[in-house]
């Protein structure tokens, strides 16, 4: 190992600090996001948590997680103070915030659009929500596409490498899962819920991307 890697390499204090921050943020964000989403849905009268299917429940958890993380990222992009709390590195440059803020904003916007997409997907269509839900989902997908394109355009080679690595793992995982799922569903061993397909594709994309982003120290 080089000397430079001993300071914050695997198991180092910087890594532990990052993991602790990640775990704390995920827990607080997840609980807050889930509670707010459940309350919002109840307030809208579209669904009571007790009537949700398993996949609708998972969709709401994804809504909560992406909403919370996306919200934090967008908030950080508008607040240097918040950004500095999250990035207490000895090497951090005062100028860095100016470069990082747009990236945080677009990444956060993409995650917020994902939250909207999954909140809309979780609404039970039999209650007449289809008229609102479909345009909402289409708009959310367009926002995701736009945000991801903006992010790609502004990324340097490390961020692009992380994106491509995550996409490669996601593609392999999706091919494997769908290829196993399809024959099992065709022969009647498991169901085939379209919402579950979207959830699998999203998780197969999000989980490796977040893991690789963390591994590369971003």
């Amino acid at each position, binding site marked *: *190992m080089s000397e430079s890697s001993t300071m914050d390499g695997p198991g180092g204090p910087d890594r532990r600090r990052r993991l602790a921050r990640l775990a704390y943020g995920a827990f607080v964000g997840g609980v807050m996001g889930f509670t707010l989403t459940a309350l919002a849905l109840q307030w809208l009268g579209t669904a009571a948590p007790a009537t949700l299917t398993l996949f609708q429940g998972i969709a709401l958890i994804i809504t909560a997680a992406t909403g919370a993380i996306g919200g934090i990222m967008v908030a950080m992009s508008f607040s240097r103070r918040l950004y500095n709390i999250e990035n207490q590195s000895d*090497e951090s440059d005062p100028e*860095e915030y100016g470069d*990082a803020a747009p990236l945080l904003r677009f990444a956060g916007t993409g995650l917020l659009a994902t939250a909207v997409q999954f909140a809309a997907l979780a609404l039970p269509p039999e209650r007449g929500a289809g008229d609102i839900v479909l345009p909402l989902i289409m708009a959310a997908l367009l926002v995701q596409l736009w945000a991801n394109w903006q992010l790609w355009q502004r990324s*340097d080679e*490390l*961020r692009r490498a992380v994106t491509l690595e995550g996409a490669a793992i996601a593609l392999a995982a999706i091919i494997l899962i769908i290829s196993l799922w399809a024959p099992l569903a065709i022969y009647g061993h498991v169901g085939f819920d379209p919402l579950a397909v979207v959830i699998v594709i999203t998780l197969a994309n999000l989980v490796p991307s977040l893991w690789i982003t963390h591994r590369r120290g971003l």
Partner: protein
Amino acid sequence: MFVSDSLTHRDQRLQNRLKEHRLARGWSQGQLAEELDVTRQTINAVETDRYDPSLPLALRAAKLFGVPVEALFLDDWMPKERR
């Protein structure tokens, strides 16, 4: 020591002396990032062996410090006939 006892694994990342050269110039990671037109996170990831830079970036870094690429990025691999 900069060179590990085993760099023969296929997934082993390159070791490098980027940090030593940067510190010798008295630059921060941000300053080096600006010189090389990348983000500070990229410099940090390279210095901590989390990311192997692209060939163009490695060449730019070597030119910037006025050293050959192999003086900046270390690899003990040798062609078979020379082993």
